[in-house]
């Protein structure tokens, strides 16, 4: 963030315009560098585990890995949208819970309701909840951390009030719905395919569209963004809205995969989601990081647990190891950052 002083050696006369290879320069590729560590870590983890326990990559094993990751992936993608703008949404766990129960209720109370309708309804509810966050953050101009901590409680409370002791179980829902998280296409469970589609769609939006890039600009320097005329409030609001929609989607998928949905569904997920994004190289103070990275981070965090179980690592060690992993990710990212800074300082801005 700090602008490192750089001497300006007077540029030699008649420099030639940069040659293409300068594009391939370390500087150019730095942005991509952030996802590398987490990807490497994931591959290493999977291979080691596989070596120790081949079943880990058996048909069922892979399927389980993907299924476990699916919901976290979707949440991490949404969270990335928000974090990149230098905000945060702690209420996703509660949103997921509300929507999951809402889904259960729909199937139980409206027999024969088309699945697609349920998806739409669930995402709509998520959108509303996300919009509330977005409005409070942008209109009332209050820090997201405080707001979403508040809505984390409120949404959870509403969920409890609404559900009470009621729980809906798998058999309250049509088999085709449950099948979404059982049937596979080329080894990929259907809901995982949905998640992958989400990742691709959002990634393209973030990399390839103007509003998407605006999100990075806003996170990189909100004041400058305002000065430059980027519709900061609108963009941030939409980021929260989108995150709500994705949390809603995750809620519906949760109902498809797991047995019971009730008052406490999704409790305490928020920090895992943020952790996933951070591990995936998303800068907690916005401006950089990618959806793909966050998704990989999610896979890594969900896989580590299964891997440790599969390796028969003492169950009591598992959480500690997850903690170490998160810290390692942050430190590595920091080291990469320092290297970048040094490179930037050493290298001349002018490429000759």
């Amino acid at each position: 963030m700090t602008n490192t002083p750089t001497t300006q050696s007077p540029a030699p006369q008649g420099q030639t315009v940069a040659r293409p290879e300068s594009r391939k320069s370390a500087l150019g590729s730095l942005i991509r560098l952030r996802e590398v560590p987490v990807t490497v870590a994931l591959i290493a983890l999977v291979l080691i585990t596989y070596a120790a326990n081949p079943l880990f990559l058996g048909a069922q094993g892979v399927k389980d890995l993907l299924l476990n990751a699916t919901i976290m992936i979707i949440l991490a993608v949404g969270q990335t949208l928000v974090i990149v703008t230098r905000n945060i949404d702690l209420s996703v766990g509660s949103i997921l819970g509300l929507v999951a129960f809402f889904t259960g209720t729909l199937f139980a109370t409206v027999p024969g309701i088309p699945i697609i309708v349920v998806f739409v309804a669930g995402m709509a509810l998520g959108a509303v909840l996300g919009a509330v966050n977005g409005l409070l953050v942008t209109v009332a101009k209050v820090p997201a951390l405080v707001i979403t901590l508040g809505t984390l409680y409120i949404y959870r409370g509403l969920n409890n009030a609404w559900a009470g002791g009621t729980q809906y179980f798998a058999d309250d829902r049509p088999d085709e719905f449950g099948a979404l998280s059982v049937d596979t296409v080329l080894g990929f469970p259907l809901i995982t395919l949905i998640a992958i589609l989400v990742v691709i769609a959002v990634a393209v939006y973030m990399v390839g569209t103007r509003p998407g890039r605006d999100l990075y600009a806003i996170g990189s320097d909100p004041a400058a963004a305002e000065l430059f005329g980027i519709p900061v409030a609108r963009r941030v609001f939409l980021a929260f809205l989108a995150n709500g929609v994705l949390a809603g989607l995750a809620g519906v998928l949760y109902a498809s995969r797991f047995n019971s949905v009730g008052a406490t569904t999704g409790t305490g997920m928020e920090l895992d989601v943020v952790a996933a994004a951070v591990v995936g190289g998303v800068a907690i103070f916005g401006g950089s990081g990618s959806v793909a990275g966050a998704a990989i981070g999610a896979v890594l965090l969900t896989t580590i647990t299964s891997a440790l179980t599969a390796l028969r690592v003492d169950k009591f060690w598992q959480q500690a190891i997850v903690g170490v992993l998160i810290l390692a990710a942050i430190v590595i990212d920091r080291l990469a950052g320092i290297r970048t800074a040094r490179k930037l300082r050493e290298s001349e801005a002018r490429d000759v």
Partner: protein
Amino acid sequence: ASGADTSGGGETSGDAGGDLSITFIPKQLNNPYTDVVLGGGEEGAEEAGFAATEIVGPLEASASSQVSFINAETQAGTNVIVIAANDPDAVGPALEEARSAGAKIVAFDSDTNPKYRDVFISQVVAKGVALIQVKLIAEQIGGAGEIAILSATANATNQNEWIKFMEEELASNPEYKDIKLVTTVYGDDDDTKSFQEAQGLMQAYPNLKGIISPTTVGIAATARYLSTSEYKGKVALTGLGLPNEMRPFVKDGTVTEFALWDPAQLGYVAAFAGKALADGTITGAEGDTFEAGELGEREVGEGGVVIVGPPTQFTADNIDEYDF
């Protein structure tokens, strides 16, 4: 029980000082099993002739979360506190205070440290429950192979006691010499966690033949995982579950047989025990007996434990006769 019983119950035992109050503090509110237990409890309280019945409790089942509820009840001067302890000791000091303030303490479903309560209403003899589950799994895996246990929280009093008995039984009883208990994992009575623990078991122990899950949340989640995985029908599953939750899995063959007592009876008997204590007709000493409404007379066994009744075993044939 119908309204008629209720009034009848009221007459039979309502005579001694009618304005007694009773409060149930379950492990956790908003949990289906708990709801059934409490349903029985309220019914019992009404029949036993309590003037006021309250149900309070935490939203998540953590060790300390019940304490402030006990405190509030103490201060409210409740005559009988019926509690299912999340932690046998954490609730201790609070219960002490409640007692010194004159309240009677009935533990049910999950016992507190005996020195803190007057009686404990137990589902069944702990050993009995344990043995049934071992027997069921033995039948289902044909008496040989690896099995694992998927329990509730690591500190759950009941489960730990049952697991202890199961281990002893497996070790001692020659019939089970070919059965190997490979591990015990904990789903924390959380659907997601249990689900993934079940999954982990499958990977960690490829030749696993069967799973015992002595907790309603755990068995349902495990059943859900098995029924959606390739292990369906290959890996046997039994334990303690609610018929309503398990019905689909019994129907689709994931689970052949599991057990449970009628949870409603727990609360029902607890209420009458509380009344008897409050009236002073029993002290919770071994040998005391009291009338438990339509369930008839009950005796306080050693250690102040009251046994409700034998567990029922549910199969595809009889499961539809039950609704809880």
